């Protein structure tokens, strides 16, 4: 299928087409796991690809693990957004709750396996996880994340704050971080 899209360079076009043809089946599958409806899944995946198209410059190597994770993060977000609209569920509230109790400023990361990292990060719900990963792994600004996930910048700030707070608590309590000498 030839997509009617304009790109600033041939490499961006090739990147997008590679991602589309390689991952659209997986993304439909992931969207369907959330939405349980193929029509809605198509809507979620096409919306995801439009966002990816607009942010194609954020993807360095389309064959990398990081790119696969990026695509699935986006489609999960578009699917969950559609799901919440279908069910008219409340979004995660964005009012501040309490003081930041756990702070990693005086800690260093100790021994922690990749599996343990996965276990810790997977305790976050998708809303918090996607913002955390987009910020720290893909180095996106709050504004860029807000546009990518179609939420307000304020929402990005609060979700990131909550994600960091939760992760800090788990890392400290799990003994995965050690206090440095002050």
């Amino acid at each position, binding site marked *: *299928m030839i*997509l*009617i*899209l304009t790109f600033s360079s041939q490499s961006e076009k090739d990147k997008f087409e590679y991602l589309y043809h*390689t*991952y*659209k*089946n*997986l993304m*439909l*599958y992931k969207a369907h796991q959330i939405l349980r409806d*193929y029509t809605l899944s*198509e*809507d979620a*995946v*096409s*919306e995801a*690809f*439009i966002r990816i198209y607009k942010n194609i410059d954020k993807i360095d190597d389309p064959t*990398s*693990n*990081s*790119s*696969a*994770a*990026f695509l*699935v993060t986006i489609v999960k977000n578009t699917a969950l957004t559609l799901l919440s*609209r279908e069910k*008219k569920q*409340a*979004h995660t*509230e*964005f009012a501040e709750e309490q003081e930041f109790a756990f*702070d*990693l*400023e*005086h*800690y*260093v*990361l100790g021994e922690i396996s*990749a*599996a343990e*990292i*996965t276990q*810790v*990060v997977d305790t976050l719900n998708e809303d918090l996880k996607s913002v*955390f*990963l987009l*910020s*720290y*792994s893909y180095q996106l600004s709050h504004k860029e994340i807000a546009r990518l996930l179609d*939420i*307000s910048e304020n*929402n990005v700030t609060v979700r990131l704050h909550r994600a*960091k707070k939760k*992760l*800090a608590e788990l*890392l400290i309590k799990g003994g995965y*971080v050690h206090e*440095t000498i002050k």
Partner: protein
Amino acid sequence: MKQSNSEDIYKRIANSYNEQLGEILRQENASVPQLPNDIHSRLDHHLQKKLRARKIIRFTKIAGAVAACFLLVLFLPLLFRIQDSSKSPADTAQEHASSEMPEASLIPLSFSLPSNLSVSNTKVDRGISVYYLTDTMDDNVVMQLEPIDTANTDFSALKTLDIEGKEVYAASTRNFKLLTFIHKDIVYTLTCRYEIDTLLELSKNIF
């Protein structure tokens, strides 16, 4: 600048997680069942349709903006000439006096808001009271109140709805919803981004 410990930790956690996740997803991609061709074809057409719609909307907005600027440049001088010639000296004096009058005060709300909405900000703009309402479901609302004697009440371009016996007027696009009506000599104009229901529920509280 040296990156703080906490930022470094979060970055390492995020990168490690993404690397693991990506590896699992690439393996899954190779083994996940291929969905039927008709679903893939529908997705291709769906995406094409969305992209075309975005191009048309973008083109229409640009063309509309250019046309509006052109018409403005063409007719604005004529408009001023007509206004000036129709004004009597008494009118001019009154206008000058009224332009020095203080800005109208905020029209207070005579109803309670639905539980999902709360006032985050207000302002008065040329006699129009504007309320910015925050929604717990992220579908924030801008509500304008204007006295009927100064408001534009030509709703002919809008769709007419009946809400509990009250005539209201609505417009809707993908990212913009509008509801307007007259109630107790005030013209209410409600706008939000996502759901017309957000505005309909608010309007019921107003009636």
